[in-house]
């Protein structure tokens, strides 16, 4: 569905012109420099189900911040680009954003390949990079704390899966992974954690993208007679695989990441198939206030609930937490100081807040805050990675309902 992205060079020129006029008429006070955000997202390519939603969310968040008077008086401007989920295209887009548009931060790179290729560029330019990628090397390559990851690493997801399996008394788990870094990461993360508990995985199947059928893959995994299958997958292939599995007579349970086991999946395969499926995502997500507020405006703009696109909720949180950090660090702070403020505003210690205006007010009063986001509670470890708890949901009356929370 075509979407209007209304922020770009022309409206910027208009607002710049208007502000210049206003400034020339106003008494001599120096206006705070705007903070430019490059929204670099996978609008096309493998990440395309999520990319445009991410851009919409970033724009909504920037609006929210600007409505509340900006971050430390600085207006947020957003310039949007498409990575095409390709490192080569992303590098060129990043260069344009950094060199031509002079952005201060790049938000929302999705695939690990893209984030890893863009990191050297943002690092050299002192630009903040916030991503939703899974690769471990993103944590370790980041030397100056400029890179922040809003998605739990694959290892963390895997560990959560293992906890769930243990809790459910699973004895014969198998893994099924989409053959890319993320899918494999989830399955391998589970295997690592599960074997560390002294257990065994009975089968591990890796399937290729874009195949007309996954019948044989399902057949192989069922032949090992598992009682649970852990998936590292996306919505289209999960749809196909679950249907094949059901038709082939499978009866085992499933653990599926929340970005694949979402309301759309229910529509695609029907509630009956999903009996015994655990959907796992970061908390607080659906129950939080930040999510509820985002969902309202997101649904209006994007035509689908925010719950269908967890990456969009992460993108929203990127803007809000960055804005709160700018607010905390002050108008004249540069990026290296702003990143020092991210943990203070997002990590525990401080009054819990769920929105920018709320947080800004408390910060102006000199209080400590703890921003609880729409995608997770946003507590960052020493690498700048989120350390969320995981919510586990099952289907009740055709809707995903949280049953319990797993802490790792």
């Amino acid at each position, binding site marked *: 569905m075509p979407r209007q992205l209304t922020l770009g060079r022309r409206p910027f020129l208009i607002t710049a012109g208007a502000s210049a006029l206003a400034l020339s008429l106003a008494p001599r006070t120096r206006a705070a420099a705007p903070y430019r955000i490059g929204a670099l997202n996978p609008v096309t390519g493998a990440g395309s189900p999520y990319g445009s939603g991410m851009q919409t969310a970033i724009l909504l968040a920037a609006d929210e911040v600007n409505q509340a008077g900006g971050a430390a008086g600085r207006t947020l401007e957003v310039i949007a680009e498409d990575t095409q989920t390709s490192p080569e295209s992303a590098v060129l887009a990043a260069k344009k954003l950094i060199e031509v548009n002079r952005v201060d931060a790049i938000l929302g790179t999705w695939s690990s390949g893209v984030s890893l290729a863009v990191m050297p560029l943002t690092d050299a330019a002192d630009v903040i990079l916030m991503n939703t990628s899974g690769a471990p090397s993103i944590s370790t390559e980041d030397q100056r704390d400029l890179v922040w990851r809003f998605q739990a690493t694959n290892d963390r997801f895997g560990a959560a899966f293992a906890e769930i399996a243990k809790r459910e008394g699973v004895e014969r788990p198998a893994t099924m992974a989409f053959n890319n870094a993320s899918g494999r990461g989830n399955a391998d993360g589970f295997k690592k954690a599960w074997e560390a508990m002294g257990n065994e995985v009975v089968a591990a199947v890796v399937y290729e993208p*874009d195949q007309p059928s996954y019948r044989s893959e399902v057949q192989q995994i069922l032949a090992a007679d598992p009682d649970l299958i852990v998936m590292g997958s996306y919505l289209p292939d999960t749809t196909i695989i679950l249907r094949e599995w*059901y*038709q082939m007579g499978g009866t085992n349970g499933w653990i599926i990441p929340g970005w694949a086991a979402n309301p759309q999946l229910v529509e695609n395969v029907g509630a009956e198939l999903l009996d015994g499926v655990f959907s796992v995502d970061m908390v607080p997500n659906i129950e939080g206030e930040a999510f509820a507020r985002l969902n309202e405006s997101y649904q209006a703009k994007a035509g689908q609930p925010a719950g269908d696109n967890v990456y969009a909720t992460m993108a929203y949180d990127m803007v809000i937490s960055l804005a709160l950090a700018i607010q905390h660090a002050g108008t004249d702070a540069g990026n290296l100081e702003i990143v020092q403020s991210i943990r203070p505003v997002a990590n525990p210690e401080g009054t819990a807040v769920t929105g920018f205006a709320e947080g800004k007010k408390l910060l102006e009063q000199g209080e400590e805050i703890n921003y609880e986001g729409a995608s997770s509670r946003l507590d960052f470890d020493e690498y700048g990675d989120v350390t969320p708890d995981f919510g586990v949901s099952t289907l009740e009356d055709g809707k995903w309902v949280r049953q319990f929370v797993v802490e790792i």
Partner: protein
Amino acid sequence: MTLVYYVNLAMNGLLQGLVIALVALAINLVFAVGRFPNAATGDYITVGGYAGIGLQALGVGSPVLQGLGAMLASMAVAIAGYLLVFRRLFGRSMVAALIASIGIAFFVRSVLSFFVGHDPYVFKIPITRAIVVGGVRLIPTDLWLGAAALVCLSIALALLFFTPLGRQMRAVADNPELARASGIRARRVMLTLWVLVGAVCGVAGIVLGIRTVVAPEMGWDVLLPGFAAAILGGVGSPAGAVLAGVVLGIAQEISTPFVGFTYKIALSFVVLMVVLVVRPQGLFGTLERVR
């Protein structure tokens, strides 16, 4: 790995192979009569799939009607391609038509995704458990889809071999000058060709769409195996293409315990290249000089 396991794999492969056979037939027909490889075949299939989804969205629930809609849509695109592009390339080399067909493929796909986006769509077919007979899994939907594909293939081949129009098409395929000299009207033959190609692609689109999901790349993803099968079967032989498609489908699935799920997709190419080294005209094709 018991025998039953392999039989099940073969059954998977059979339905797969029937779809590949449809694609291979569509490619083979254009190869033989139109004298060029048509890279847009995949996107005719995609159009068919989306047409079916469109009908479903309008409230048409019957797969048969959706399939008919798919066939009509694919036919329309195929005929348009002929009238607007391929007809004007008559007399030019095969390469020109091939390049143009790639252009049509990209164009059709991008127009589709412009309007309907990149997210996949699902046919709302009731999902039922398989019937197990002696360990062999028979899935009802599969049986229907396989039957549909088989019927379509049979009708297409029957048309080619037993009707006057089909004979004319084969005459043009074998020897265009002689065909023209004996009074066969080119225009009518070409239109028949594209109608047939469209129909076959439409069926492939609906079968694929029901079996998996409808997405902008769905046809392009089966194009390569289809080409491999068409060449394996040999240009002069539509029945050969169909047979090769089925064989490739089954071979791919049966090979998975040996080569794994990643290499299996390369299998059709490896087979193709081996056959071409040993027998450059394909299994059933006629020997022609290089170029």
